[in-house]
């Protein structure tokens, strides 16, 4: 990543220019997050003051969001559905990626191209059939009803990124282990898996973000608090009464669900970037 970086420090004007640009860009990236945070902290009376920063700070909207049964339920659903879908998708993708990178068999190219085709697939095209099927199979408004499409639609991303990480493994280590008498499975578990773990983890983060963000399936395939996830709950959120503006509550809920994402980014930004660009360009 650091190749081609100019080593000269530049003149004072240049340094000021770069620093200024940097601040502008970071501000631009964080603008809506700061704005929603500010909105969520404004007391109800100040919500329409049209100011960017709050004049006074209160936590009433956060209290309201947790008093309402919709939001805590949605938070639990989002976490559960997202984690289960991520676990299964990444496990299946790891098996497939190992085969694609490591074994010679006809059709391995087809798997990668097929995965790419699925990645381009418009989800709206299968909403109708899934809606109909899920009602017949009793999967409508259940966790499984969302987990299944999330696995499918994240597999391409997982397969491509994990394959890209697999290609950078020194495979001589596996051969050495097998010469020493380890089985293929033993060598995979004890030698290869620890090496690819960071890459697999990066894919897991991307897959989780996908499931955590999805609105279309959540809106179409759920209807109650038993499986409605955060994006749908926030989009359909209504105030306690018809006359109450839920703006403050929506802002508070938005901030709460953005915090985990920001923490993930702060901890793993390097790996997330590697995962996002792996396969897309070098592949």
């Amino acid at each position, binding site marked *: 990543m650091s190749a081609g970086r100019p080593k000269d420090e530049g003149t004072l004007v240049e340094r000021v220019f*770069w620093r200024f640009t940097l601040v502008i860009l970071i501000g631009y990236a964080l603008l809506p997050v700061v*704005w929603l945070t500010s909105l969520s902290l404004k007391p109800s009376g100040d919500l329409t003051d049209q100011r960017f920063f709050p004049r006074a700070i209160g936590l009433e909207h956060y209290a309201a969001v947790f008093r309402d049964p919709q939001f805590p339920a949605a938070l639990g659903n989002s976490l559960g559905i997202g984690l289960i879908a991520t676990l299964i998708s990444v496990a299946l993708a790891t098996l497939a990626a190992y085969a694609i990178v490591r074994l010679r*068999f006809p059709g*391995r190219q087809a798997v990668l191209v097929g995965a*790419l085709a699925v990645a381009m697939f*418009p989800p709206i095209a299968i909403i109708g059939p899934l809606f109909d099927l899920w009602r017949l199979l009793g999967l409508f408004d259940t966790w499984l009803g969302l987990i299944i499409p999330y696995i*499918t639609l994240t597999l391409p991303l997982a397969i491509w990124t994990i394959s890209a990480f697999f290609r950078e493994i020194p495979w001589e280590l596996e051969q050495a282990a097998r010469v020493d008498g380890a089985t293929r499975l033993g060598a995979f578990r004890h030698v290869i898996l620890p090496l690819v773990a960071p890459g697999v983890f990066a894919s897991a983060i991307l897959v989780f973000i996908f499931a955590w963000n999805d609105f279309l399936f959540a809106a179409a395939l759920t209807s109650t608090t038993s499986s409605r996830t955060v994006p749908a709950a926030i989009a359909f959120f209504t105030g306690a009464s018809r006359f109450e503006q839920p703006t403050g509550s929506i802002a508070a809920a938005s901030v709460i669900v953005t915090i985990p994402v920001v923490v993930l980014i702060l901890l793993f930004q390097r790996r997330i970037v590697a995962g996002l660009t792996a396969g897309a360009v070098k592949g």
Partner: protein
Amino acid sequence: MSRQVLDERRLGWLLCAPAVLAMLLVTAYPIAYAVWLSLHRYDLRFPDQQAFVGLANYASVLTSEVWWRSLFNTLLITAGSVAVELLLGFGLALVMHRALVGRIALRTASLVPYAIITVVAALGWRFAFDPTTGFVNALLGLDQAWLSERWSAFVVIIATEIWKTTPFVALLLLAGLTLVPPDLIRAARVDGASAWQRLVHITLPLMKPAILVALLFRTLDAFRIFDTVYVQTRGAQDTETVSIVAYQALIARLNLGLGSAVSVMIFIGTILIALLYVRLLGAGALGRGGRQG
């Protein structure tokens, strides 16, 4: 063919089978089912009237003004957002590439728009442009009901899309930018090429695959835009996109036959866009993935 080769083949197929099955079951089968549905009168509110109607649903879609307007809206949003994202993304990538200080802070910050829930981002911008709660009007000294008028609503929708996805474009372009050999740039500078000439004659041609990949993914993504429009206007003020039209027919009106016809049309549109880019990229570029193993 030796036993070992056969064993390796069998293991390869075995390991890929679960992933391939999972992908086929929830894409190929439902799309086939969608095609079947699109050829029938199939309205969940009138389940007794189910009947094969041939291409009648497609005829209704293709002769309806709603479809053509939504297609126009979708293409407008796609063209507007992708063009600006590419320009801004390239600028952002150049800054990330050149920045001496704070490149990690910049990269971290620019991941926030990518990772934030689209619904949340769309609501944030909706509140910002709202005439009563928002700060935008106060900032610009305007009195504009942004989301209550068609063209200003498009401005908000496109701005939201641009904010959300420019960093993703920038990261893809940055990966392409790091593949440009610095020696080549230095040599050109020694030979007297201006910054503009270096950009046009060296950097851009070498980045062509990265640019096309970013364009391909963003065009397809923008073409299926749903969340932002749904949250910001619900398709009011004539801002419906094709995905909104399909969703309303399928889920709000429970007309699976007609809605599936719209879905199949969107699917065909996606294929056409993908084919166009694959042609531009050259068939070889996409297939290279598995060859390095």
